[in-house]
């Protein structure tokens, strides 16, 4: 039986797909058979971030409609043979998704996989709703910025009311905060909400902070999940996040600013 993780945020552009690619790769590299599904029907991009855009033949909607079977649609990742990508359809619209169809595909995947990562589209409409509906765990990707924090809170409300676990009165979805695009320098200057601020506002368990990093754009440029860039700060942050999710104790990093020579000379503490 697979554990289903939804990566969601409400707001667009905060790093959902980057996160989905990174954590699914991280889980697979730890040896868990993992599938990552793009729920952004009509605007698929996970394939591009994972670097498998030229290998897409069949998609999620084809499988739902019985036009292809799962094995035909799943793309095995070229870096890790425990990771499979199920791309979204680029030509259909979101109405092609149905709760029964998604449920059937997830159930079939559950037999064979240990983790299923659902990359939610932005917004709160059908794609986003179905991405979270069957989830066991939710990774809330938030930027330290007012509109992102507010939208994250809205998603928490929906997770608590519009999911299968909520409807069946089961144990609620476990919610985790992933604070991305974090700039400790700007926090220090009082220009950006701090981790503590965001945690206080949302009262969420912090899984990790991903610093604002050039490596994220470099990774997406080349179609390699940033977690494989082990030297980069963002890559290390995602590796920590996966480890913490799996129960390892890892001290939080990337929360304090890097001190340059000037800071070392004049900075306190």
């Amino acid at each position, binding site marked *: 039986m697979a554990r289903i993780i939804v990566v969601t945020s409400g707001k667009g552009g905060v790093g959902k797909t980057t996160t989905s690619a990174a954590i699914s790769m991280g889980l697979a590299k730890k040896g868990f058979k993992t599938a990552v599904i793009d729920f952004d029907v009509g605007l698929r991009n996970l394939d591009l971030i994972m670097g498998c855009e030229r290998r897409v033949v069949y998609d999620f909607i084809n499988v739902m409609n019985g036009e292809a079977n799962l094995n035909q649609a799943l793309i095995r990742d070229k870096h890790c043979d425990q990771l499979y990508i199920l791309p979204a359809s680029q030509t259909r619209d979101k109405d092609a998704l149905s709760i029964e169809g998604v449920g059937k595909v997830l159930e079939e995947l559950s037999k064979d996989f240990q983790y299923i990562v659902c990359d939610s589209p932005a917004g709160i409409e059908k794609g986003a709703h179905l991405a979270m509906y069957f989830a066991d765990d939710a990774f809330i990707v938030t930027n330290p*910025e007012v509109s992102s924090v507010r939208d994250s*809170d809205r998603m928490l409300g929906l997770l608590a009311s519009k999911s299968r676990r909520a409807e069946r009165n089961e144990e609620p979805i476990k919610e985790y905060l992933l604070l991305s695009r974090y700039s400790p320098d700007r926090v220090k*200057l*009082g*220009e950006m*909400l701090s981790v503590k601020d965001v945690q206080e506002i*949302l009262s969420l368990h912090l899984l990790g902070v991903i610093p604002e990093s050039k490596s994220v754009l470099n990774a997406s440029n080349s179609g390699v999940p940033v977690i494989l860039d082990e030297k980069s700060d963002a890559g290390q942050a995602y590796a920590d996040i996966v480890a913490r999710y799996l129960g390892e104790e890892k001290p939080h990093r990337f929360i304090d600013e890097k001190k340059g020579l000037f800071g070392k000379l004049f*900075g306190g503490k």
Partner: protein
Amino acid sequence: MSLLDYFRSNKASSASVAKERLQILVAHERSSRNQPSYLPQLQKELLEVVRKYINVGQDAISVNFEQDDDQEILELNIVLPDHHTNKKS
């Protein structure tokens, strides 16, 4: 406190303004999240009924819905004007 901190201005930082605004907003949105969707309509119709008999203002009625683990409370508050009984007599 470091030398750098000393030169930083003491006025409220934009981050603390953001935090305060978000705390108020999130508290408000969370409190209205679990309310049934008929609440605004109920409030409007109740106001109409009350106004047939008593001249009260638009905001004289507040309807609150609270939910505990095992009970739901619908709280209705009508603020009457100071001398409404005197007029009748």
